[in-house]
């Protein structure tokens, strides 16, 4: 069995400091709450630091960390969803920009999860197709097709709303 390469604290810290804003942005998009982003990314990096020796090294460290961030964000989203089910708070838009944001949020929420993740990684993290493919363990071609489908579906949803 091949020995895990492991990730050093130096590598993880460098990645954290270089891409923290992007990790937070993607996390906020997945959870649906901006104020959750910091906790999600911190939790993800705590997991990464604890598990650093299990990093196999058969792919980029960035992709390994992105997967951890995505999983932490999904966990947070699931917890938030359960809390909302229990308390059922209803927020109403307070101004025009909030209204637009809610329209976009509703449209994005209607996309399949893979399309959402590809969109977020492409636009919020500025990852190229190869990096997205490595992060989501899919092929480059699947990334391209998923992104095209997400664009088309998002335009359609927003057009329907704003007509």
């Amino acid at each position, binding site marked *: 069995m091949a020995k895990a390469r492991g990730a050093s604290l130096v590598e993880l*810290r460098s990645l*954290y400091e270089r891409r923290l804003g992007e990790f937070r942005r993607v996390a906020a*998009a997945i959870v649906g709450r901006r104020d959750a*982003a910091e906790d999600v990314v*911190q939790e993800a990096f705590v997991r990464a630091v604890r598990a650093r020796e299990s990093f196999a090294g058969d792919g980029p460290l960035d992709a390994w960390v992105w997967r951890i961030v995505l999983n932490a964000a999904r966990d947070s989203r699931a917890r938030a969803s359960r809390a909302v089910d229990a308390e059922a708070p209803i927020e109403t838009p307070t101004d025009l920009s909030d209204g637009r944001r809610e329209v*976009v949020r509703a449209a994005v929420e209607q996309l399949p999860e893979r399309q959402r993740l590809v969109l977020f990684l492409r636009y919020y993290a500025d990852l190229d197709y190869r990096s997205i493919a490595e992060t989501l363990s899919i092929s480059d071609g699947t990334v391209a097709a998923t992104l095209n489908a997400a664009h088309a579906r*998002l*335009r359609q949803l927003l057009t329907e709303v704003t007509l």
Partner: protein
Amino acid sequence: MNKPSSVAETLDLLVEPFDNNGNWDQILRRAGIASPQVRSQVRLPRLIALAAVVFCMLAAAAFATGLIEPELLSTGEDPELPVVTPAPKLSDPPTQSRPAPAPNLGSPEMPAAKAITAADPTLRSILDGRTYVITEAVPWVNRTIDHQVQIVGADLTLSLSEPLSTRTPLPAAAFTGSGEPYRKIKVYAAIEDATALTVLVDLRTAELVTIRPDKAAKVTELPGNTHDPEGVGK
């Protein structure tokens, strides 16, 4: 409602950019690892204390087995263990009674410390092909009786490319307080999962004096610890 002109603008509306200001030390604390800042504040006192404990432990063992005469251990006064002292904080306000601040490691100290570390055969053997990055470097200083601070060497943290597990004698320093700066000893230990090593480099003798695993590593003392009679620090 004005429509955004692109998918990117649409998504910008949903989540605006974040800054890059984070708290890495908090992550390390939550992961159970001491942060570099915390370690740097306690590094030398802790190192001295640990070395003193190791020395006392080994001295007691040697005394029990008759390797050391009792009178050799008795100085008749309180031990002055920290011949090596931590650098004062540069942020402290200067006062007349306060010692002079320690100089920073620069040229030629830092290149020399790096070179001595890189060439040390014991360290190379322990690393067994691993590479390292120096993630922290603080001066190892000696304070003279008139409060002058002199650089003795460098205290370096080496972050390793791969975790290290080994059973090997580690060079260590025992601070005896008997007039010698320190005594070189060997500590036999089993190390598991060290991701960083701390080394003390004596720039006066151009030697790597101690090698210690980071706090996160599991260290078990092995039988066979004895004094190294050679190489008393100058």
